[in-house]
Every structure is written in C-alpha cells, then in structure tokens.
C-alpha cells in the first residue's frame, strides 16, 4: 500500500508539472506499464464515481417511472442507429 501511496504522491506532483509543461518523449518506450499503473491509481476514484452515477440514475428512474410509465428516450449518440 505504501508503494501505491508513494506512486500516487509522485503522480500528483507529475500532474502539476504536466499542467505547466507540455510533454515530449524522446526515447523509444514500452508504454504498457504506465497505462497499467494509471488504472490502478484511478481505480478507487472511478469506482466511486461510477457507483454514485448508477445509484443516481436508479433514483431518477424510480421517480420518473412514478410520474409516467413511458421509458426515457435513448440519449445515445449515433451508435444507437
């Protein structure tokens, strides 16, 4: 856990740096590790926000169903052809 904490602190600092300096990679890299670690770091955050979103949708659905029985129109983009 302490490793994750350390990484997290480091990434916060890095994020601030990234805000200021646009990034350039010069060397040829394996980008796989960074993509993995980023997901581990944001895992808790996205899980919480996703749970709240689902929960909130259910509440909205519950009340909208009480008002009228019609299902909500799909607000999807073009993928709902």
């Amino acid at each position, binding site marked *: 856990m302490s490793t994750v904490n350390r990484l997290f602190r480091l990434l916060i600092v890095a*994020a601030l740096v*990234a805000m200021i300096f*646009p990034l350039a990679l010069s060397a040829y*890299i394996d980008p796989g*590790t*960074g993509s993995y670690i980023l*997901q581990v770091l944001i895992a808790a955050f996205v899980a919480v926000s996703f749970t709240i979103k689902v929960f909130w949708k259910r509440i909205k659905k519950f009340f909208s169903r009480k008002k009228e029985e019609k299902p909500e129109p799909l607000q999807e*983009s073009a993928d709902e052809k």
Partner: protein
Amino acid sequence: MKNEAGTLASSFRDPSGFLFIREKILYRQINHSYKEDYDLFLSSGLYRALTQAGLLVRHEEVLIPPADPGAAYKIIRPEPVPFISYPYEWGFSQLKDAALATLRIQKMALEHGMSLKDSSAYNIQFLQGRTVFIDTLSFEKLTMRPWVAYRQFCQHFLGPLLLMKHRDFRLNQLARVFIDGIPLDLTSRLLPWSTRLKPSLATHIHLHALSQKHFSRRTVRVREKRVSRTSLLGIVDSLESAVKKLSFKLKKTEWADYYQETNYVPEAFEHKKQVLAEFLDLIRPKNLWDLGANTGIFSRLASERGIPTVSWDIDFVAVELNYRDCLAKKEKLLLPLVLDLTNPSPAIGWENQERRSFLERGPADAVFALALLHHLAISNNLPFSRIAAFLRKICRALVVEFIPKSDSQVQRLLATREDIFSGYSQPEFEHEFSRFFTIQKAVHLKGSERVLYLMQGRDDQD
C-alpha cells in the same frame, strides 16, 4: 493481403488464431491455446448478447480441414464484410461511433465475466450501416487486472477524436503513420492547454502520457496489481462520457455551401440523375465506388437500387455530412469514406501487408467518376492516358463525366494558372479512354455542355 497458404497478414500477431481464405471464402482458425476463452465466450452468453445487439459479426462453426492442423481447435466462418475500411478513411462521427461501439462491447464483456484484450480501431468495420466488431478472438476471461486494452483505446479513439475536435479534423490522417494509434505524448503535446483542465481528459490523455513516460524505464511488477470489476466498469464509463461529449459542429454557412455545390442548373441535375439511373439499370453492378462523391447524392442512386456502394471524397466535411445522412436515413448499403485519389491509402504495417492499399481492395464492379476528370487532369496535371489506365485497374464498368474547358467549373480551375492543357478536349479524352475501355453510351446533359459516358473495361488493354 495473403500468403501462399491463404493466411491473411492482418491477423498474424494473434496466437489465438488467424484468418485464411479458401475458395474465396474467409475462415478463422481458432487455436487450442484459445480453447478455454472461446468456450467461455459462447457459454457465458456473451457471443449471443453481442450478436443480438448487432455489435459483433456472426459466425458459424464449420467442419473443413484446418489451415494449420497442429494448432487447430475449431474453424469458424464469419459473416463477410463487403468492404474493409480503415480509421484514416473515416470521418469524425464514424470514429466516434466506432469508439462507442468498442466501449459498449467492453461493458457487455465485463458483465459476462470477460474482457476485450485489444481495442484497436481496425477491429471495427461498417456492416449494413452499423459499426460492428470483427475480431471474434479478442475476448478473454476477466482476471480483475487493469484493462490491458486501455492504452490502445486512448491511442486509437480518444486521442484522435480530441485532436480532430480541438485542433483539426484532418489530424485523423496521423493514423496512417501510427498503425497502433497516435502516441499519447504526441496527442498531449498537440492538444490545447485547456484540455488539461477537464478531469477526464487530464487523466486519460495527459496524466496517462506522463505515467507512460515515468514508468518507461522502471520495472514494476504490474501483473500483481488487482482492480475491482466496478473500477473496470468505471474506467469504461469515464471513457464513454468523455467520448460522448465530443461533437463535431459545423457553422450554418459551411453546411449550406456543401449542399449548394450540387445545386447547379436544375434541368441538367435532374437529367444527370435520370441518365445515371438508366446506366445502372443497364450494367447492374454487384458493387460500386463513387469517386469524388461529395455528400453522396449520386452514390444513393446506386445504394437505393440495392448496390453496395462506397462513397469516396477527399473532403472530410463532405464525408461527415454524407455519414450523418446515412444515419438519419438508416441507409445500409452506403459507406462514405475519405480518400485523396492522387495519394490513395497505401498498404501499411509489417512487410507492408497488415492494412491493404486502396488498389488492393478493388477492383469494384463499377465506378462513378463524375465531375472528377477536370480536377485530376487540370489541378493535378494528370494526362488522360494515366487516368484511364488507373480507372481500368479499379473497375469493370465506368461511368465518367466529361466537362469541357468552356464549363465554368473548369474555367475556375484555369483562372489561376496558365492553360498548358491543349490535350484537354473531348476527342482526345475519347481516344485515350478507348485504349482501356469500350465506349457504350455517351449522353449530352440537357442545359449544359457536359457529357456522361458509359464504358466497359477492355480485356485486351495495353
């Protein structure tokens, strides 16, 4: 592109299986190494759910001798996709739809205890006017590890969409250079600073690029990292919201300009449609490419007759408008794509064989080349002989429009340059094209000086 054994080079990286062609039919061999995942894919109900939702090509298992008997577990025959297109040929909405389809598939996979192991844009194709996933072997058992295809999704979809929206829609051409998606550090550098203020973009693009850089020279035992299914769903949901927010808006005047283009003398326009319809009924092609199709008005004469049609144009906005029309009218047989005919899509990837060139994906049964010749001959200095030879390579039957020098469209092209095109005349055009085609019909369009030709490719061409 295939080798002697009929194996397609587009699938050689995948140890789970490969595509091969036998007697003009496309098959996919599933190797023993993928047995467990394939069985789970079917038994979990994911295959059924995805095909019912129209998100995955259907397939049937067949009993034929495998292409590589030692490794073979099963052979499947996937539903054929009439025309394979690539992300650098798509407009903004096409890439966005492909992105959303990929995320919906990943969501459904997670709900069925599986996950996508790659999310390359090349796995999405357009079939019957819908975005479908074509790689049946891309699903693996869910292991509660970070999403292995997250990087690929950001590089193939999110990054290019952001670049198109925030910088310039022509930046999707970068996909031609970077076959595995646009590197995130490059996307991060090219995007406006303001994108760093949006939490989802700051994370999925900028922080992501930074994280890649930070860990590129460190060894971290990532295999031991675990994340929950809710987190994985959260990542997909976050990407989905980011993609859905992206829209490509046009100013009213830009819209109007595009529809104005085709709005020349109504009499000639109506006559042109009528002649084209007659030609189509005469040749009844199995498929058609409309080159320089603009927003696809004439392409629709073919697609509405049940002819699978690809509507090519150099202009991204025209292709975008054409695709939106397809969606609005639920058109199944029309596919709008971006193409610069003077520099068509090359073959790219390993040994130049992974993605096929424009020419390799032909020939088409018929080609429309309407109001196109003067652009090639005058703007691009191409002699009629070269244009005819090229068109013969890509089609059997040709419908071509000749526009004389006196036409205002040609005069517009000549206005800024010296007229060095003494060979640009109707007799010269007929002479050069006759070397490659047999002229079957020539019809003068009413109220104009333009001529529409119907030609059949000659087999004895030199």
